[in-house]
């Protein structure tokens, strides 16, 4: 029955007329749930202009009559239960949901096991950055616990790789002005970013080996790019010598023509 309600909620969200990126001030829910609305106004979900209350809770946003707004046929589910939180978030964040379901936190029958909102918050949803990794672990895994250490390792690994990838991307951009053929590495850079995104998603499974594998795959792609850039730099030197060669040939030919002209 609950799944049915969720399905209706999803269906309503997917409807062509479904309200999204509307102004929160016009939403009727905010009249009673003003604290939640205030938090939501600061969330990445609202600031990105993509979501409103009904995307997670169902119901009708602009209906003043509460009974109609919260009628079951509107897909209203109210506060999502612990066991469906992951699937509600997973409507959009499929990757994280998939990895979360394979990790140690997914069993909602275990008391104190976190859900998505434990780390990302519910209404004032935080942007998912690597900085969030350790901060999210320590409230439960205090001190030198293996889990907290794992958080630190994964966090620093991802931060370093993100920085490296940004530098590689900048280098490729700057070199492309000199050597347009480096455009062939654009798809490779895209793959490197995809691996890092995957590693970000894999953090939800709390398995460091998966993250490592993705980061290594990203590094391999970056190495390909850096090798290409190094080759391009060598080619640039060759091009300069080629220019010198061209002018030597041009000058020799001009001299020969001049001699021929004087012979006439």
């Amino acid at each position, binding site marked *: 029955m609950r799944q049915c309600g969720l399905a209706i909620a999803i269906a309503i969200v997917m409807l062509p007329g479904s309200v999204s990126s509307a102004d929160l001030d016009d939403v009727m829910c905010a009249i009673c749930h003003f604290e939640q609305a205030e938090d939501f106004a600061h969330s990445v979900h609202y600031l990105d202009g993509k979501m409103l209350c009904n995307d997670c809770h169902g119901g009708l946003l602009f209906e003043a009559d509460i009974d109609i707004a919260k009628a079951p046929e509107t897909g209203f589910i109210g506060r999502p239960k612990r066991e469906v939180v992951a699937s509600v978030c997973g409507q959009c964040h499929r990757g994280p949901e998939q990895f979360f379901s394979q990790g140690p936190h997914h069993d909602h029958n275990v008391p104190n096991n976190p859900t998505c909102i434990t780390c990302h918050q519910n209404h004032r949803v935080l942007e998912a950055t690597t900085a969030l990794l350790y901060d999210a672990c320590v409230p439960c895994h205090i001190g030198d616990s293996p889990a907290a250490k794992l958080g630190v390792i994964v966090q620093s690994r991802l931060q370093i790789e993100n920085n490296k990838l940004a530098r590689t991307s900048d280098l490729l951009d700057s070199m*492309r*002005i*000199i*050597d*347009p*053929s*480096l*455009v*062939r590495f*654009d798809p490779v850079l895209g793959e490197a970013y995809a691996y890092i995104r995957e590693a970000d998603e894999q953090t939800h499974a709390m398995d460091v080996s998966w993250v490592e594998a993705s980061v290594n795959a990203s590094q391999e792609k970056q190495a390909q790019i850096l090798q290409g850039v190094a080759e391009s730099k060598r080619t640039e030197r060759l*091009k*300069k010598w*080629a*220019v010198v060669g*061209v*002018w030597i040939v*041009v000058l020799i*030919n*001009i001299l020969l*023509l*001049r001699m*021929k*002209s004087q012979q*006439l």
Partner: protein
Amino acid sequence: MRALRAVWEWLDQRLGLAPGLQVIVNNLSKPLPPHVNWLFTLGAALVFLLGIQILTGALLMVYYIPSADQAHASIEMIVSEVPLGWLIRSLHNWGSHLIVIITLMHMVRVFVYGGYKKPREVTWLIGVLLLGVILLFGFTGYLLPWDQVSYWGTVVTTEAPASIPFVGSLIRQLLIGGEEVGGATLGRFFVAHVFLLPLALFGLMGIHLFLIRYQGVSSLGRIDEPEPTSKEMRAQGGKSFFPYHVLKDITTMYVIFGILLTLSLLYPPFIGDPADPLSTPPGIKPEWYFLPAYQLLKYVPDIIGVQIPLILFLLLILLPLVIDRSPERRARRRKRIVGGVVVISVIVVLLGILGHLSESTQTWFGKEYYFDLMGMPHPLIEIK
């Protein structure tokens, strides 16, 4: 050599080519006036560059796909996968810039030496039409990479004709093949670039070259004086076109080739992001030779701004027919017309510079300035 002669004799016996060849040899041996100098090699340099454009254009056409979906990817493929594809594209790109520069230099030379005057008005008219064809080559070729800069540059340029009264929007629709620049525009521009314009170019260039050889290079004397005969020219120190001037032509071609290769090797053209009709990048501008017209449109209403370049083009056509009918060829004896052309040229160059600077930030003498839409500088103050 003997084999070559045998082939020639075989052909001559069947086609009677010898008298025709004799006419060509006699024509090439005719002396040129003694004032003919290195500036008179610019025309040959243009023919040489057009040859390079045809060759590199044909090679690019092997891989280029003129569709909105694949044009950009095919250019990326040319520069990254095709052996020396980047160099072929770079030669084609720099060749187009050099052609415009040398065409303008060639026209200035003809103007200064009064080479457009009677009886060579038709040669000048054809030359002006050739300038138009060359600019249209640049205009149509600019869109073909289908990246953001070329797409939006074309959007900006094709908006201008729409302001012509009554027929403006129709002209624009015919030009771009719809309401917006899109796949239809790319198809039209491609056909114009690789078929229609080359046809016009070959036709006009053929007539232009024929007239130059037929009428010879003009003297510096007045148009009401008889032009010196071959004998008089030889007596004044004039040398025959072949081989003396041809050797000069070849020397200039070598220098141009050196410049072209240097630019192509060291500064290959950049490939921007694929065209996105929904996202306008900032500071979009057309090619440098359209910048004066582009900047002019910012200062005057579109309806006037669109017509001024057309009027200038008309003035070029009317130059030998109506505007400059003095019998003098020497520039210092045509002070009024030379002064007028210098003033117009300075205005055009200034507009071009303002167009280049507009909507950009430049550092001059250690200070940063933002040049607004009109090209006016505003010092950037650092907020502490």
